[in-house]
């Protein structure tokens, strides 16, 4: 269980935020709220890009706050810029494996991960040539290879057309269930939340309200 207990944060000359969300394995927790309400700040706190003024953050009892972003058991999927455009889909996915993984073993794992997200045969394609939905799928393949128990999604479907949005959404839900991820989705799209959320919080005046 991922538990944030009264995580507080304040930008200069602004009222402080206070967050206490929880996420269970195999489930998707959605966070909604108006623009500027602090949704991305919450993700930054969970991922380690911002340090809270106070509060606690644990995963199955283990304290995550002392860990820097690169050491947290967290994968990220953002609205854009998830891939490095000048390398191939396979090379992007390979970044999810620990350094020193034998090449052959790495390639096999990448092929399997790309197949799991429906991109078998796309290994050698340059990331720059992929569509928006395909890029998100490659990023999900990398997430599979990283094998971190927490997946943070920051408006990951916003740039996709309706059809791609539905299929990518279904894929996220399926992978979350299959791999037991604690997935936290930040979105201001009601249909995404309705389709995916097992638990839903709304951010109002810097506080989370369970919906």
């Amino acid at each position, binding site marked *: 269980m991922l538990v944030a207990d009264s995580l507080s944060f304040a930008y200069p000359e602004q009222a402080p935020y206070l967050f206490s969300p929880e996420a269970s394995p195999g489930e998707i927790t959605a966070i909604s709220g108006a623009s500027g309400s602090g949704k991305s700040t919450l993700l*930054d706190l969970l*991922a380690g*890009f911002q340090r809270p003024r106070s509060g606690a953050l644990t995963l199955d009892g283990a304290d995550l706050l002392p860990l820097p*972003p*690169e*050491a*947290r058991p*967290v*994968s*990220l999927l*953002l*609205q*854009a*810029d*998830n891939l*490095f*455009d*000048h*390398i191939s889909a396979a090379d992007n996915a390979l*970044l*999810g494996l620990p*350094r020193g993984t034998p090449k052959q073993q790495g390639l096999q794992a990448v092929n399997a991960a790309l197949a799991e997200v429906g991109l078998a045969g796309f290994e050698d394609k340059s990331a720059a040539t992929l569509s928006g939905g395909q890029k998100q799928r490659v990023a999900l393949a*990398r997430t599979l290879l*990283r094998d971190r128990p927490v997946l943070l999604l920051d408006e990951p479907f916003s740039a996709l057309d309706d059809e791609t949005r539905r299929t990518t959404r279904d894929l996220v839900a399926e992978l979350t269930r299959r791999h037991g991820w604690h997935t936290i989705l930040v979105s201001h799209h009601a249909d995404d939340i309705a389709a995916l959320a097992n638990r839903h919080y709304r951010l109002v005046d810097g506080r989370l309200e369970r919906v």
Partner: protein
Amino acid sequence: MLTLPHRPARIAIATALSIAIAALIAAVLWAILAAATDAGGQSRVDIPHLLRMTAIQAGLTTILSLLVGMALAWALNRLRFVGRDLMVGLFAAAIVTPGMVVAFGLLSIWGRNGWINQLSQSLFGVTFDSPAYGLSGILLAHVILDGAFAARILLARLDAIPATRLKIGQSLALSAGRRFRLIDWPAMAGSLPGLGAIIFLLAFTSFPIVLLLGGGPANQTLEVAIFSAVRLDFDLVGAVRLALTQIGVCALVILLASAFTPPPAALDRSLPPTWRDGPGARALQWLVLVVATAGFALPLLSVLYDGIVGGFGRVLAQPAFWRAAITSIGIGTASALLTLLLALGLALGRSAAGHPLARTGLGIPAFAYLAVPAVVLSLGFFLLVRNFGVSTGTAAPFVVVGANSLLALPFAMATLGPPLDAIVRTRGKLIRSLGIGGWMQFARIEYPLLGRDIGLMLALSFCFSLGDLGVIALFGTQDFQTLPLMMYRALGSYRNNDAAAIAAILLIGTIAAFIFLPRLIERLAHAGRR
């Protein structure tokens, strides 16, 4: 682009200016070609040798400056320390720091009687051959200036990397090497061809540094050879051939460079996450920063020190100094204002012209001056003035102001053009819906928004002119000299203390103008930075 209302007056003014500037280039080229045809005689200039030497020097300068610039930009992007902004500002000032001043600073440190040799003599009783002369000295001076310039440009690219990309990279625990390959390199790579072409042109047409540090014919470049042919050997045929070669190569480089358009910088300027590289990479970054700062700042500090010790007082007491200072400031001010008028006239017309061909047509004559080095332009004017039977003494002030202004024009256009286009893009519909036009549009909208850019353009133009030696070298006389020419003459007559004091004054003047002019104009325009 239909967002702005039709602005026939702006387009007409820009067209007239563009035609006038193009006619002037044509006249200069005609004067040079006619002189070559008329003379038709023999010349002793060895063009293949000079071309080879100039290309080697400029090529090495470009490679080394880009390497230094990338390393320095990388270090500055990562490290945070007190005084960082000041240091970045200092590196930005490299573009306007007079080459003569840097050359003098290098001599002060690495020269035969420089600090290094004095220290070595007193500690170990031995002295070294000076590396400040010849190809090594030229490269050192160029890399100090152009490496710092490259670092400033590349740092802007690194600082514009979207925060989202950095978040992904950090969460993937990329090593320093992978981070450079996957994130930093793609951000910088798009700028390298254009930046390399600019540095190559700057080095290819470098005049004062090669003149002071060249150390003889072996390291002479085309630019210096033209000056020597006109002023020392009276070999007009040789000068013309060299000038045509020079223009041809510069035009070729510009054409090649124009094929590479740098990708637009990302607009995500949100605060990037704190992501420190490992201890090994950080140690390397500090090392790069310390070495680069020492390499850039030491020659400048030594210029200031030598100037103060050498005796500001004696120089300030000379009437000739005050005449030269007033001439320099007058020429700088006049050429900066003329550049502003030309650049604004052209840039406002270009931003109003919707068709890409029209925009290109209005820009080409101004940007063509990139291909015309200072000494060549000066030679062209020199020949034109002679053809019209005007004495060079009478024409000198006008020619020097005009030439300096034209040489600064491409940089002025590059400074004002993008923000003006951005105004059209972001506020064009609003301007159109409010029915604002003409002078009101400029005074109420464009001028306040462009305040800082106009200030930067004026500062660039003023500083270029203040440090110019290439144009004044052919037109200067005992009665009409600027501070750089006076400094050059002081060096030529072994009055090193006078030269040191003038170099220090030039350095202080250019840095002060570069820092304060943009702020002053911005304040006058009551505009915040967009």
